[in-house]
């Protein structure tokens, strides 16, 4: 099914004379290790990108000393974080405090694992792909909530409660937009969604008005889901210290930081898969060349990430009642109507 399976397993079985069973397990370990590396590098790269983008919007230079364009700055930061003492408050709930980072890291890693980077490069092509990503990333809220609760710190508790209410609320509109786009494509499998778009054009084009409404809702809800400004009430620095991870130090803090940025990438990748054709090239200019899809997928996804970074320096932070009003009184009714609208459009055959 996937190229990396056949390449690795074939190589091991044919060239190294390895039994098929062992080759299978070796392959799994190799793939998991590769994804771990991608996970860490992606987090470091996105932190660098965020800082450079912030500097760009504020007409500063940003990190530019370590390595080309300051690329190694975040690696230095990561090394610094490793060398920090892992400590925390004595009053914490030790068990919950310890297991909380595992939730965020594991869920971000599992969601990353099913993303289709190109036609040939997709580790897992499960038939419930989109549903799997949303369900897995909704578990991450448990990690953040546990961190806030177990810290025994009033600011952390507030941050944790806010994250709970914010992330579960905005998950609803994400789910409903996915339902609307599923009506258009008729499948939940990531590779099939993209091959549908290969035939009918990108969804934002073939679904026209309801797809554009869905895209706007998805961008708003996705920004809220990954706890980014203007929805960063969870770790609002000026009111809550740093929210749910106040009591985490060193690497324990770095896990939350890493997972937050990888989640941003995953949300952007979902936008690209659902609306902008995943690894498809614009107008099919590079069709048929293997592995070029990786470039287009990453290029488009980083474009959406850039848009989310742009939001951060454009909008002021919401109050919590405004946040809930926006979701429950505007986005949910709009996305419910949007499902019916999309169903009507598909039923009457008005798609391109």
């Amino acid at each position: 099914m996937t190229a990396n399976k056949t390449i690795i397993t074939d190589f091991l079985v044919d060239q190294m004379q390895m039994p098929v069973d062992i080759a299978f397990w070796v392959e799994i370990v190799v793939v998991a290790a590769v994804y771990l590396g991608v996970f860490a590098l992606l987090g470091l790269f996105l932190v660098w990108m965020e800082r450079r983008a912030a500097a760009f919007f504020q007409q500063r230079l940003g990190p530019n000393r370590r390595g080309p364009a300051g690329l190694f700055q975040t690696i230095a930061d990561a090394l610094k974080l490793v060398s920090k003492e892992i400590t925390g408050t004595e009053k914490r709930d030790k068990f919950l405090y310890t297991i909380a980072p595992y939730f965020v890291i594991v869920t971000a890693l599992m969601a990353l694992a099913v993303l289709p980077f190109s036609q040939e490069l997709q580790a897992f092509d499960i038939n419930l792909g989109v549903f799997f990503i949303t369900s897995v990333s909704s578990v991450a809220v448990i990690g953040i909530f546990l961190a806030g609760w177990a810290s025994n710190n009033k600011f952390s508790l507030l941050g944790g409660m806010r994250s709970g209410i914010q992330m579960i609320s905005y998950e609803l509109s994400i789910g409903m937009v996915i339902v609307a786009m599923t009506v258009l494509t008729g499948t939940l499998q990531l590779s099939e969604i993209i091959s549908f778009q290969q035939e009918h054009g990108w969804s934002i084009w073939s679904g026209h008005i309801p797809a554009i409404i869905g895209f706007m809702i998805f961008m708003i809800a996705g920004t809220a889901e990954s706890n980014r400004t203007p929805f960063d009430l969870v770790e609002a620095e000026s009111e809550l210290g740093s929210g749910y991870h106040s009591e985490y130090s060193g690497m324990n803090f770095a896990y939350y930081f890493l997972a937050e940025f990888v989640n941003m990438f995953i949300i952007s990748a979902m936008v690209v898969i659902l609306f902008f054709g995943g690894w498809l090239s614009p107008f099919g200019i590079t069709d048929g060349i293997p592995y070029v899809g990786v470039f287009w997928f990453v290029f488009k996804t980083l474009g959406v990430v850039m848009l989310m970074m742009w939001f951060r320096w454009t909008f002021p932070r919401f109050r919590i009642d405004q946040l809930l009003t926006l979701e429950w009184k505007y986005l949910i009714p709009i996305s419910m109507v949007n499902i019916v609208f999309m169903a009507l459009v598909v039923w009457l055959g008005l798609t391109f």
Partner: protein
Amino acid sequence: MGIEALLVFPLAGVALILIANFLANLISYKSDNKAKQEPYESGIPTIGPTWIQFRVGYYLFAIIFLIFDVEVIFLMPWAVVFKEVGAVAFIEVLVFLVILGIGLLYAWKKRALRWE
């Protein structure tokens, strides 16, 4: 790759944290004093217990969320087969969403969606 291989990924995540924490414990400089073990609340000593009752608003929203989340799960299979079923599916989902919309309106009217 088979779906069962996906179960390796949680293990990989756990391994990442265990290894990184082990390294950090190995090379980090450690110090200890009484103030360091206090919760950090912007430098002010914490007053009273933290795990107390919190406002009911969070709870209300969580309950309404549960209803709508189940709704989304119900809609997923409908969305997949919509093109094959056609008109019947459209009318059915209209009824389904209208009933849910009335539920949302009820919560709205009961001021469950107000943050006060």
